[in-house]
Structure formats: structure tokens, C-alpha cells
């Protein structure tokens, strides 16, 4: 397919790898964070880490939407799913995220009507087909998925659907990045920017990273050559002593983002004063709720939610993985008690989670065979 195949060319990948080697300063160790879970997945799927020199370390960021959902919010979803007459809908990965006692999938096994959907529009269709049932969509995701939820709610409002509502867990990418940059645990040299989030919000929201923290950012696509080229662009900035936001993903990301999507989101959502992130704690103005104009579709107002904060299991080190402080294989339960089939932590649930990416693609330990 055009715009896909040409970005998977192995020869060009090796050439980029050689160029990366040529940009390194002797004796320097580079830590580059890929913000988005989609990048993490692509890096290990295509073995890009094997094409990088040892002193270029990739640190995995908090941009996997499933991974950052705290257990208390999962419990809220399960409580709604158990309400009589409710059809509870969510993306497939959410089904396997552990709450404090069990998962949505286990709630389904107990009799709750929990259904997997690929899009919030599917949930809307279910609501139309079941006018005597309450249909609830458990919305997760960054600015990439929020427009889909917003459009769905606009459509529900236009159709006057009264049996559809949404538990809104949408989050925004800038506040956790700022929190990470303020963290003394982590010293990063640059960022591979989230290409699809920037398709919606544009490049400007990331400008605080070079302006306030002096780190380069390269907004990147998700194919293997995109990621290698972005790493090369970061290293070139570092070598030249520069820091700015560059756009590697120009075939998709417009500088100003998608203004129509931003307009719809501004109509349907409002910022929450604070929101809990798994592993990162409460972060101010980092998540979205439904705006007052859409209060009728807000499941948090329609149903009574427990709203209880639940601490992560002690064995789970998702927080440190999400902050890039440890590698997945350094977690005590990685690959033993915690696997994709029986996940303890969220990072093992979604294919975009760092732990699942390591596990699925054989990164069980530090040692790698030389290529």
C-alpha cells in the first residue's frame, strides 16, 4: 500500500542505521523517549532496537491509553456494567485490564452484558437497536480517539438518543510529559513525538519541551523508517546543539493539526481539574470530562460510581515502566506471574504497552544476540 510499503524498506533502514552511528559523539549515552505506545510496539515488532548502537537507549513513555487507566476507573466501569439493563461497551483491550477484584471480561462471565466495540459509533448503533436498554461506552484514549467519541456524542445528541451515555476517561498528552520532565528520576536527551496525537492537536502543544526544558522533539510516523529517521533527526539536533520541534511525519501531520476535530472536542469536552494516571498519580488538567452541554450523556452523572482510588498491586511496577525508570524485564513479575494472558499490570495488557511489546517480541532480558 502506498505510504506504507516504502517506509518498511530494509535497505533504507540499514542506511539510516549507519547514518545514526555517524551522528554519535564519542563516550556519550543518549536516552530518547518514544512517547506513544504505538511507537513502542513498532520498535519491537520490527526489531529497530537491534539497529541502534548500544549507547542510544530508547525509553518508553506514558502514551499507551490502556496502560494509564487506574484501577479505580476500571472498578467504576465494572460497577456500571453490573447495573440492571445496561449494555456496557468498550474497546477490546479494556476487557482484560484488572480492576481491584476482577476484569470487565470476568464481569461479563458473571452475567454483565459487556460488549467489545471497534469504535464508539458501534456503541451508538447498539443504542439505536436497543431502545429499552441503557448503552454505556467506556471512552479511553488520547487526543487521537477523543474526536471519535466527540463525533459520536454529537450524533447521539442530534438523534435525540436518550439511552446512550459515556464514561469519559480521555486524557491529554502534554501534562504527563511535563510531569515526566519535572521528574528527577529521568534524564532524557530528546523525544520521539506522538505523530497521531499531533495529527489532531498540531505541533504547537509540544513547543514547551524545547522552550522550557531544552530538549529536541521530532514528531514521528509509525513505520520503521519513520522511527529511525526521527532518531537520526534528534541526534542531529543534539550534535548541532539545537533543540526545536521538527516534523518528520509531514505526510500526515499538519502544523496546525485538525481544526475541525479540535472544534468538535471543544464543544463536547471540558478539562477536568485533575485526573489520576496509573503510575504517575494525579496530574492537573490532564483529562477530559463531558461539557455541560453534553451532561445528559455523562454516565458519571447518570449512574452512581464508586469513585474509589485503588492502589496498584505491590508486585506491579507499571508506574516505573510508564515513567521509563525501569525496563519491563526489570519488573519482578514480568513474564512470570504477569503475562499477556494473565496480566497483573496494564502495561502487559495492550499490545502498545511496553511490557507486552517486550514479551510478544522476545525481549525477555537485557542480553541480546549480536546482529
Amino acid at each position, binding site marked *: 500500500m502506498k505510504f506504507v510499503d516504502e517506509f518498511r524498506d530494509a535497505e533504507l533502514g540499514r542506511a539510516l542505521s549507519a547514518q545514526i552511528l555517524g551522528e554519535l559523539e564519542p563516550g556519550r549515552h543518549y536516552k530518547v523517549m518514544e512517547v506513544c505506545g504505538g511507537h513502542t510496539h513498532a520498535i519491537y515488532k520490527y526489531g529497530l532496537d537491534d539497529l541502534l548502537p548500544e549507547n542510544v537507549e530508547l525509553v518508553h513513555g506514558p502514551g499507551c491509553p490502556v496502560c494509564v487507566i487506574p484501577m479505580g476507573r476500571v472498578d467504576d466501569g465494572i460497577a456500571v456494567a453490573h447495573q440492571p439493563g445496561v449494555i456496557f461497551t468498550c474497546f477490546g483491550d479494556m476487557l482484560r485490564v484488572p480492576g481491584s477484584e476482577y476484569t470487565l471480561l470476568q464481569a461479563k462471565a458473571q452475567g454483565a452484558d459487556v460488549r467489545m466495540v471497534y469504535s464508539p459509533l458501534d456503541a451508538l448503533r447498539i443504542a439505536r437497536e436497543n431502545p429499552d436498554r441503557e448503552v454505556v461506552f467506556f471512552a479511553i484514549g488520547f487526543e487521537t480517539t477523543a474526536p471519535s467519541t466527540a463525533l459520536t456524542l454529537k450524533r447521539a445528541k442530534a438523534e435525540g438518543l436518550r439511552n446512550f451515555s459515556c464514561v469519559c476517561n480521555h486524557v491529554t498528552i502534554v501534562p504527563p510529559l511535563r510531569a515526566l520532565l519535572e521528574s528527577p528520576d529521568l534524564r532524557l536527551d530528546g523525544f520521539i513525538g506522538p505523530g497521531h496525537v499531533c495529527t489532531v492537536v498540531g505541533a504547537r502543544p509540544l513547543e514547551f519541551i524545547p522552550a522550557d526544558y531544552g530538549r529536541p522533539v521530532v514528531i514521528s510516523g509509525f513505520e520503521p523508517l519513520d522511527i529511525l529517521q526521527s532518531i537520526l533527526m534528534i541526534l542531529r539536533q543534539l550534535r548541532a546543539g539545537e533543540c526545536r520541534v521538527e516534523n518528520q511525519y509531514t505526510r500526515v501531520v499538519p502544523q496546525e493539526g485538525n481544526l475541525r476535530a479540535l472544534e468538535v472536542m471543544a464543544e463536547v469536552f471540558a478539562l477536568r481539574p485533575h485526573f489520576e494516571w496509573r503510575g504517575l498519580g494525579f496530574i492537573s488538567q490532564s483529562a477530559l470530562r463531558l461539557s455541560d452541554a453534553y451532561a445528559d450523556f455523562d454516565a458519571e452523572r447518570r449512574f452512581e460510581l464508586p469513585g474509589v482510588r485503588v492502589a496498584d498491586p505491590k508486585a506491579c511496577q507499571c508506574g516505573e515502566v510508564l515513567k521509563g525508570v525501569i525496563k519491563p524485564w526489570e519488573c519482578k513479575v514480568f513474564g512470570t506471574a504477569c503475562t499477556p494472558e494473565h496480566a497483573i499490570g496494564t502495561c502487559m495488557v495492550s499490545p502498545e504497552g511496553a511490557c507486552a511489546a517486550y514479551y*510478544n517480541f522476545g525481549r525477555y532480558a537485557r542480553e541480546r544476540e549480536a546482529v
Partner: protein
Amino acid sequence: MSPESPLGPCEADIGHCITCSDEGIPMRVLRAGEDLAECRDDAGELHQVMVDLVAPVGSGDTVLVHAGVAIGRVGP
């Protein structure tokens, strides 16, 4: 999938995850309607995609689809 993985075939290996809709997939527009378009992904699967946010689109355009909604255009 790595050969040593104890898991069975992984959906992640077919190009994208089939259960998580929170990912961007480039798709080719086959037929464009007013707000919906029939699109084909890299694997040849057909999808009905909402195109309000990138309209107007025409046959042959490539769009980036997230959770059933096109959020951007893919182009040179």
C-alpha cells in the same frame, strides 16, 4: 512473534492489533458518501469510516483512521 514465545499466534503480528481501536490505520477511500466512506486498509479489509473531520474526500485518497473516524489525510 519470536519463535520462543510461549503464546500462540499473536494478533499484533498481522500488522495491527485487532482488539484495540486506539491506533491509526491508513486506509484508501474506495467510495465517498456525505459523511461515511467505504475504505480499504493495508490488509484488504473494507471499513465504513466517518469522514466528517477530513471532508471532502474522494476515491483514491488515503486517510488516517482512528476508531472508525478519519482524523487526517495521508499525502505527500
